[in-house]
């Protein structure tokens, strides 16, 4: 195996690991509210999301979502630079997963690649206008647009079902919630698996292994779909717990409203070619639904932590990407550099995972167990 092939194989494996972390980090986007309102049992919900993410990856065949397009000068991108960017994105995804903070995997990937490009070729390798129009402005707008829609939907949901028995209301909205969250999962698979496909194609083209006009090879589609599906199935329970239970206490009309607003925002923005982060859209939707219910409480400290993480995503993933790039450059032989950086990143991520096992969140404790109704005391004998 030549040195170029070795680097390419490691970089593609790293891209698939990123795709996996993207899946488990973003399971919450589709299923947090569905699990929180008990519309579906946790394992069934992530199983459904995993299947729909897998299917979604095949729905669109155009690599319109090539992640670096319009954000970095593609002519300057090499396989080790993309590899370093992926390392930055993976580390940030795993750190935010450990902290239970829903942050954007797409922004982590963009940040990682920007950082590694700056470290490798300087700031002239970054298209700053692209960063503003594709990352910063959408990041500000996404939660506002979806939050407003979710607020309106929540107000209407409660107002229009006034006087109906609560069990019927819950049952009806839970069914609707399953449909809307399924659409979110499908859209996530289509958009996010495409991004990893785009990264792999970019590396194959950069390494001279694929013609730029050749399209996405079938093995790339299948492996990306499988990676994001498996990642989704593994749960990402820590982020699900935050979005489903810590931002606000979600009832089924709110869950339905948040997921419906999220679906509308994601699909309409995707249709009009305006890139929004699924994570930020759904988080905004949950906040809007929390504000929309009379007496609903949004825990602003949790929201503040999320917003801080959103602001930090680009620079933090970028910093790790830059360090990874310098790590590769520190060795005379790129192959040795890539192997060493990959092993260090692996050790770091395994360390964080082991740390997380001390207070593991699983499908069993992601939501509070249902408390059985208190037995009515027997009437005292006369």
């Amino acid at each position, binding site marked *: 195996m030549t040195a170029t092939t070795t680097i390419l194989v490691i970089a593609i494996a790293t891209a698939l690991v990123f795709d996996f972390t993207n899946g488990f980090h973003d399971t919450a986007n589709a299923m947090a509210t569905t699990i929180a309102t008990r519309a579906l049992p946790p394992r069934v919900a992530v199983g459904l999301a995993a299947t729909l993410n897998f299917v979604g990856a095949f729905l669109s065949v155009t690599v319109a979502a090539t992640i670096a397009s319009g954000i970095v000068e593609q002519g300057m991108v090499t396989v080790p630079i993309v590899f370093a960017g992926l390392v930055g994105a993976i580390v940030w995804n795993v750190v935010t997963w450990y902290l239970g903070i829903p942050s954007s995997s797409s922004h982590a990937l963009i940040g990682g690649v920007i950082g590694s490009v700056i470290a490798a070729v300087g700031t002239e390798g970054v298209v700053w206008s692209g960063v503003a129009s594709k990352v910063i402005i959408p990041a500000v707008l996404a939660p506002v647009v979806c939050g407003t829609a979710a607020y309106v939907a*929540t107000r209407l949901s409660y107002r229009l079902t006034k006087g109906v028995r609560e069990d019927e209301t819950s049952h009806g909205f839970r069914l609707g919630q399953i449909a809307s969250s399924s659409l979110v999962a499908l859209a996530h698979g289509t958009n996010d698996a495409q991004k990893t496909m785009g990264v792999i194609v970019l590396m194959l083209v950069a390494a001279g292994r694929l013609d730029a006009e050749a399209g996405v090879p079938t093995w790339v589609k299948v492996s990306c779909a499988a990676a994001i599906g498996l990642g989704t199935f593994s749960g990402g329970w820590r982020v699900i717990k935050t979005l489903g239970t810590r931002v606000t206490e979600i009832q089924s009309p709110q869950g339905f409203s948040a997921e419906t607003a999220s679906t509308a925002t994601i*699909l309409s923005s995707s249709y009009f070619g305006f890139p929004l982060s699924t994570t930020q859209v759904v988080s905004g939707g949950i906040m809007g639904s929390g504000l929309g219910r009379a007496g609903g409480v949004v825990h602003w400290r949790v929201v503040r932590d999320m917003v801080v993480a959103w602001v930090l995503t680009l620079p933090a993933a970028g910093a790790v990407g830059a360090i990874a790039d310098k790590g590769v450059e520190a060795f005379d032989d790129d192959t040795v550099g890539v192997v060493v950086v990959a092993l260090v990143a692996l050790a770091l991520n395994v360390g964080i995972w082991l740390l997380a096992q001390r207070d593991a969140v699983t499908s069993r404790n992601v939501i509070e167990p249902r408390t059985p109704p208190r037995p009515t005391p027997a009437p005292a004998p006369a």
Partner: protein
Amino acid sequence: MTIADLQTYLPFGDLVKIVAVCLGVAVVAPTAAAFAIHGLDQRQHAQTAAAGTIRIAAGVGVLALLVAVGLYALVAA
């Protein structure tokens, strides 16, 4: 920064369409769901069972239409 400059970063036309779609769905979807839920309630009573079934069908039909439009948007995008 002039409005023309801002337009290169933020496509106002598309943004207005996205907001319109989101608010439209935010009104139509809960209305349809509430319509179906009222139908569920009506089916509990013998006198209004048929009307309840019609309400459920209408509400679910509108929601199914929204899902179909969403799937179209996903594939067409």
